[in-house]
């Protein structure tokens, strides 16, 4: 499927979208906190992917690669948004009735704590804890060192832990 999609087969590409789009959008959402922006990030990610799919030689890596591309696009969108200094006043409360209230970390608290991180750090959290990539994989996809990525994740975790456990 990957080779056919890379060669421009639209049906194969549609299957690829069906298999991975939801994951990409979820990762992008953790970074952007906005469904519309997450969708834009995914659209942009697919646009990039269609020209670069042929470079992936190991089909097993396609998910992590696609998710990382979407995460990077989401990071860029979130960064642009942050520079505009937009303050969004929510009409609806942050809590959602579909979410299990007994969950250990309150969703509203998590959303607030993540929003205080910069988009780059949110991307690391999304790739580590949603996409389930380890530090070495994240570092490889971002062209960074594994030890640097580990150290940075540890710093972000410390910060989140302090913020979430002090609530």
């Amino acid at each position, binding site marked *: 499927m990957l*080779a056919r999609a*890379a*060669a*421009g087969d*639209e049906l194969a*590409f549609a299957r690829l*979208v*069906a298999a991975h*789009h*939801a994951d990409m*959008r*979820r*990762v*992008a*959402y*953790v970074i952007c906190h906005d*469904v519309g922006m*997450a969708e834009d990030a*995914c*659209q942009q990610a*697919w*646009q990039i992917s*269609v*020209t670069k*799919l*042929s470079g992936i*030689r*190991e*089909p*097993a890596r396609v998910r992590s690669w696609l998710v990382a591309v979407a995460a990077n696009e989401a990071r860029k969108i979130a*960064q642009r948004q942050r*520079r505009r*200094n937009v303050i969004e006043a929510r009409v609806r409360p942050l809590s*959602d009735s579909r*979410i*299990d209230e007994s*969950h*250990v*970390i309150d*969703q509203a608290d*998590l*959303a607030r704590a993540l929003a205080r991180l*910069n988009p*780059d*750090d949110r991307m690391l*959290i*999304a790739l580590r*804890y*949603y996409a389930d990539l380890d530090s070495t994989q994240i570092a490889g996809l971002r*062209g*960074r*060192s594994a*030890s*640097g*990525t580990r*150290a*940075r994740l540890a710093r972000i*975790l410390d910060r989140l*832990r302090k913020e979430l*456990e002090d609530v």
Partner: protein
Amino acid sequence: MSDQVKFEMRLEAAVNVLATKADGPVDSVRIASSAINASRNAGWWTRLTSIEQPQADGLPGLSIRPLLVTMLAIVAIGSVTFGISWLRGTNVGPPPSTATPTPSPTDSAPTPSDSKSPLGPGSPQPRPEVAKGWPNTGPWNPPGVYSWDGPRSATGRGFRCAGGFCVIGIMHKSDVGIHLDVVPEGTFSDDGATPVTVAGHDGSYRQIDGRARPPMLHSNMTWLPGHSPREEWIVDIEGTTIAIRLTARPGASEADLADAHAIIESMRYEPRDNDFGFRLVFTLTNDDWSSG
């Protein structure tokens, strides 16, 4: 199970729940037709070179692409070499034995000066200059490439923290100075700032009223004696917000200010295994700068 691991498990669960808020129907993904066409045009190459063996027993898939590329490169280089030789009328075959003098024991090896000839085949390739770290406190730091490696530099010099703000690099030349601070996000003002690129990253620049010190600095100790802040660059690099400030005494010369600007403009980003994951490398073009 440690508290850290428990927290990570809770965080993972919470992030997964949060991510589901993005769920919804996907009607279509819009891809520009030019991208599809480009992909199709690239298809013959993909089909030719992506003959992969199926992944088995945890071994990575093999591809013949590297082999093909290498073979094509060898053929291309060989063709070009042969073509050049032919055009020059050089005999590409082995030279006739009569033209080759018999080597004598005295001329068997090239002299060291031969091998170091700049035009010779054995001439060493120029290597990039190694960054010297942060300039020394003493004078006469020679011109060259230096770096700011964050608070945990090998020497530990130039690191000072006050009230959560770290002045981790100060250097000066006569009446001008350059400060590098790590500042918490949200503690600086964007008033009057214009977008710029610093060390390859998006940042902002503004001129500061020399009489008013930026509000985030807690102590006058962070400024060089008699200096006032003049200009400020704020740049976010991998989540670390860095403030670069140019300070000057009244009457600082244009040449010194231009020298400081040149240093800031020369700053470039390098990934690094340190606390920040990167360092800033810059060039001093004279030996007037000092961190003391």
